[in-house]
């Protein structure tokens, strides 16, 4: 089995926030802490508006893990980045380092005091005993150990957000992209990577550099 991954298909995400609600409900995440959120770019601009659901991406070389002064992060054998909240000192270095804004800090308290970091666990709980009350209280439900996938992905209304074994996720996505009637390249990201304009697979042929006859 490969690594666990999330993938959000911007051609499918409609910003319904079903993923956010599923996450909050499954783990009883307090108000103000967003393990997952949906961002919309170019809101209201015809032809340019895209929405994406974002949480911890469970990086292979996770920046949060590199910068953590107390080394409370670990990667599971499935490639899920987790952390032990007990040694966490709530310094927020991981928040600086994370490119996705995944680390969250509780907002309660008289001075908005910064508590221990909280983030998406890929529904894999934490280092406490699986499905124990302690694990739930600190990290939320451990669906992975029940043979289930993250609640956000499984609840997604349009199946924009996929989660699970990277091989399986990419298989599903490949199927979909190939069905897109030449629009597979229309997925957000292609134009960024290969330039704007005709973003169809046939465009690949057009950008193939012409070999010029040497003088």
């Amino acid at each position: 089995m490969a690594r666990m991954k999330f993938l959000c298909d911007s051609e499918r995400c409609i910003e319904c926030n079903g993923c956010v609600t599923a996450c909050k409900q499954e783990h009883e995440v307090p108000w103000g802490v967003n393990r997952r959120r949906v961002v919309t770019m170019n809101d209201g601009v015809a032809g340019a508006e895209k929405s994406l659901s974002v949480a911890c991406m469970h990086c292979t070389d996770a920046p949060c893990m590199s910068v953590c002064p107390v080394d409370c992060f670990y990667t599971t054998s499935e490639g899920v980045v987790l952390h032990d909240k007990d040694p966490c000192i709530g310094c927020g270095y991981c928040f600086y380092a994370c490119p996705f804004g995944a680390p969250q800090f509780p907002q309660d308290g008289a001075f908005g005091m910064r508590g221990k970091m909280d983030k998406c666990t890929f529904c894999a709980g934490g280092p406490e005993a699986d499905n124990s009350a302690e694990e739930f209280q600190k990290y939320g439900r451990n669906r992975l150990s029940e043979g289930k996938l993250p609640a956000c992905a499984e609840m997604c209304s349009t199946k924009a957000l996929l989660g699970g074994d990277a091989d399986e996720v990419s298989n599903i996505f490949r199927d979909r992209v190939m069905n897109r009637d030449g629009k597979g390249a229309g997925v957000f990201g292609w134009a960024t990577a290969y330039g704007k304009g005709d973003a169809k697979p046939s465009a690949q042929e057009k950008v193939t550099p012409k070999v010029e006859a040497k003088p």
Partner: protein
Amino acid sequence: MRSLQDHAAEAHPVSMLHTLHAKENGAKVICVDPRFTRTAAKADKYYRIRSGTDVAFLMGMMHHIFKNGWEDKEYIAARVYGIDKVKEEAAKWTPEEVERVTGMKEAEVRDVAETMAKNKPSTIIWAMGQTQHTNGNAIVRASCIFQLVLGNVGVSGGGTNIYRGHDNVQGATDVGPNPDSLPGYYGLVPGAWAHFAKVWGVDLDWIKKQFPTPAMMEKPGLTVSRWIDAVLEKNELIDQDSNLKAVVFWGHAPNSQSRGKEMIDAIKKLELLVVVDPYPSATAAMAAMSRQDGVYLLPAATQLECSGSATASNRSIQWREKVIEPMFESRTDHMIMYQLAQKFGYADQLLGKQSDGKLRIKLTKGAKGMDEPDVEDILREINRSVWTIGYTGQSPERLQAHMRNMHVFDVKTLRAKGGKDAKTGYVLDGDYFGLPWPCFGTAEIKHPGSPNLYDNSRHVMDGGGNFRANFGVERDGVSLLASDGSHSKGAEITTGYPEFDHVLLKKLGWWDDLTEVEQKAAEGKNWKTDLSGGIQRVAMKHGCHPFGNAKARAVVWNFPDPVPLHREALYSPRPDLIDKYPTHADQKNRWRLPVLFKSVQDANKDAVKSYPLVMTSGRLTEYEGGGDETRSNPWLAELQQEMFVEINPKDANDRGVRNNEYVWVESPTKAKLKVKTLVTERVGAGTVFLPFHFAGWWQGLDLRDKYPEGTAPIVRGEAVNTATTYGYDIVTMMQETKTTLCQVSRA
């Protein structure tokens, strides 16, 4: 190809998957809406339309279609009545005129028309964006006619897809909440009363005695949209003895209805107000604003706390299991109904008590050990009575077998391939999931349900159909029946034919196909009143549709506008168009009340000078309906914490307001809403959008202390309908919530 005035991505996120899936498989998606919605963001093309001008746009498309000969001539000749009159109207809608009225360019209108015509089957999806207008009936009919012109109705992948607003709205409509009909669209005619009295096991004379006069029994009642006028209108102007004195809000949000300001006056004047709801809802707070007594709150169970059948937008029915027991003091709706009937003294009639003491609907133990009518028996009563739309074959046993064996149904065709229910031995093969109505005949004859209405490429026992012969056989010398050769597959009558009754069966020589018992029941009856189901069975055995085979009406002669016409909204942003496209004349009596049209429009011709912005409203994904339940849920409340108005940057800048600032939104009723701005290009300049799920603020004031203690929703805000203006559809009495005027200023 799909389009128009539905915002599925926010209002129906799960259904949006169908559209996205179709798009991935090559369908073109075009969104036509006054607002660039999340649905528009997923469409191939988006065209902006001025709110409330849909008829002009649809006629403009038909203009292109007829001009280019894109219409399905064969289909129209065989299956549509009165298209010439539509052609005449469409001819008036030149591209220039369409642009003048809708703001849409010729190329845009032509593009949608051509895409729809050349990529068949094509469908139109809509919801409240078409219906909640003063000319809503014309808009939806124009959409249907448009599909008829292209031959898209009765075709898999075509048709009109109208997404319902809530869970089981379709089912509720089918069992008859409309004040002009008994269940199953039987109407209020004496025959309908007699039919139901028999099914219910209630003496018809007893029913008659419940009405003060026989006329009241057959007169359409008041519509829910206008209950406030039924309270406030002068008594001599209303078409019943007394004004409305008592109102029961049963799972209904007051803030989803227009003219909130006047609603407060009506609530004040009522003698009795009852709220039956899982939450006290905004009704309770509004009542507390205006009165101290005569208000009763009855806590109702949610759908998770009861079982029963629910009908979806595609007319398929699912059986729902109870997840938890009713919490706190809540009781199920049917228990509350039964207990009210007990207090009123007609519990026996409600349950259909027979002379031998047997109950047609038995009692079962519900919440806290109290009696409630058995839900399976309630469905069986529907099965016994509603022959009109084929609610007869969906027995609780068949539906429950479907739920236990979902895996045998093909996800695309919805049809079972093989499969046998382990519990009952019921053979599922060939059934369509949820037995979408019409599922004619008794459950025993195993009609599979109809996945698409009017589809004559299939046999009637295979879910096929044709248009119903509901309006006679001819009109002004022109036949209303389908042309020769146009019939559902395998029909033994290959021409058009009228509805089936005992006379027709005898004429055809099919009477002897009935069993003796059936003959006895069917004598003197027709396909919708024969309780044995024999007439339906025999008609279908010969491949015929029980309701006849006729043409669809493009001209509805019994409506005020037989051909849909564009009419400007009562509060129009374009007074220059009112003379050419005026609204209806004022009506003295519709649904027991006078309805104002022209006088309101004329009086507000200049309103646009003080209220220059078009005010429209709609839904958010986070909240549902009036929003009291969902705004009380912390996980949802966190996502939308404040009521807002979407306003174009130009309009915001011209008024000196910035994003996320409080503003006053004032409508011509002088009602003022204090809301936050969301400055966005989603709306064009000149239009503002407000979501309708909020309540709990009243013109700047937080009503938190008006809710019973501990029941105020977490998120409260201004209800847009506090400010919405007068206006009702002439046929349906649907309120105008989508096109009115307002002004926005800094708070």
